[in-house]
């Protein structure tokens, strides 16, 4: 069965100074799947995700998301929710206010959907505490709510469960599967083989600047 490619990254090269991070990397993701990008800390997973999201431009190569070339045809990919590493917020505002301001920019998330997204990730929409008082886990949950609140087709997540306890990780995995079942495409980075086996259909290991597809994953999301 052929399905539409949501992500097409071709021949991506990226170096910082003399250090080559990505070296001719290719990556394709069809719609409606969960794919994991794995690798050791500092190997370049976050750089790859930042290139896919349009925050970093590759030295060579092209990224197409939903058929549009990122950095050329569109500055940032459309219909995409992102959770990048160390997500940042307006520190003096509550979680709800942060998401509300972001939702107002796009005009795609109203009060109802923001509240629903916060509840979905286990945060209280009525919590008035400023974000600067949030724990790492709460910030991560807020980032996830931010990524899904506008109902994007593609969700790119960098270490989405880092900082979460075991039960919370399980809850998040269930959320990913639910989103996948709704037709969303999810790409996430992880250094945990256990996590990868829990939710992803395919896992890719970032080795020597290239992605190598793992022979099989264990859980296959079921």
């Amino acid at each position, binding site marked *: 069965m052929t399905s539409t490619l949501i992500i097409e990254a071709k021949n991506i090269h990226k170096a910082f100074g003399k250090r080559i991070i990505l070296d001719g990397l290719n990556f394709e993701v069809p719609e409606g799947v969960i794919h994991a990008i794995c690798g050791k800390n500092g190997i370049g997973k976050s750089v790859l995700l930042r290139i896919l999201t349009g925050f970093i431009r590759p030295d060579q190569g092209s990224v197409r998301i939903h058929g549009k070339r990122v950095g050329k045809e569109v500055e940032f990919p459309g219909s995409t929710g992102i959770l990048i590493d160390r997500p940042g917020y*307006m520190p003096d505002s509550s979680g709800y206010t942060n998401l509300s301001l972001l939702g107002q920019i796009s005009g795609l998330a109203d009060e109802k959907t923001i509240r629903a997204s916060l509840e979905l990730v286990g945060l209280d929409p009525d919590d008035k505490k400023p974000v600067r008082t949030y724990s790492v886990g709460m910030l991560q949950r807020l980032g996830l709510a931010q990524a899904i609140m506008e109902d994007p087709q593609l969700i790119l997540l960098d270490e989405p469960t880092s900082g979460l306890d075991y039960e919370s990780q399980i809850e998040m995995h269930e959320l990913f599967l639910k989103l996948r079942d709704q037709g969303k495409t999810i790409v996430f980075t992880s250094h945990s083989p256990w996590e990868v086996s829990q939710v992803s259909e395919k896992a890719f290991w970032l080795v020597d600047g290239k992605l190598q597809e793992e022979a099989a994953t264990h859980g296959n999301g079921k």
Partner: protein
Amino acid sequence: MKINEEKTNNHILKVELRRAFQNPRWILIVLVGVVLFIIGKTRFPQITVTGEYAINTTNRLMLAMHYSELAFIVPLLVLIPYADSLLSDIQSRAIDFLVFRSGRKDYLRSKLLAIALSGGVCLVVVLLVMVLSSSVYGINFKSGIYATGMVNETEPFGPFSALFMTKPALYLVYLFVSAFLFGITYSLFGTAMSVIFKNKFIGFSVPLFLFQIVDFIGVSMNPQPWYLIPLRGLMPFNAACKVGDHDLLLQLLQYLIVLLPSLIIIGLIMKSYEKK
């Protein structure tokens, strides 16, 4: 419709204006206006005495501006409402989620507009508070001689000075417009310094420091050159009297000398941020 699709639903300007103007710092701005008036009134009690010194509302505001510490704190004052927000967005990394939805250019344009407007409106609010505070016995715009509280009482100096004698209400409008432009200029200057130094306290002290240094150097020269009178834009009636005749063009030029480098600095720093 989905997120970010062709940016057709980009409301970043509305969001930035909301962030700039719906924040509690404006209470502080109003309080500062009241305190400044009290300082001016303490130093020159006749500010509110109708007829004796200040013949009209415009004159009373000019006296309140002159005798308060407005001139000293103004480079800091305009930074209070929102000038730290660009640095704050960068340092907190909130900028990532913002630009992802708005695009970098729209974000920067909206941010600078919101900062500039907040700086301009900040000074207008302070002047308005001073006008209202000094008009406890009523507002009037009678024509007459400019009372300075000093020896040579005559018409004020600077652009449109003749308006004071004939149409003081219009001259008051000119003072408000001047203050608005001054606020725009120095709020963006403060923003530029804050992103250069990556520290809002150091960055915000730079305009204050330069303001004082430039004025000190200018005062030591005789005659004081126009470009070394940093207060020209805010209090043209006072600053101009140090050297005599000036015109509006020089006043605007002085704004541009501060404004253009500030915008260039902000643009370059944002460009370098984009490349990271």
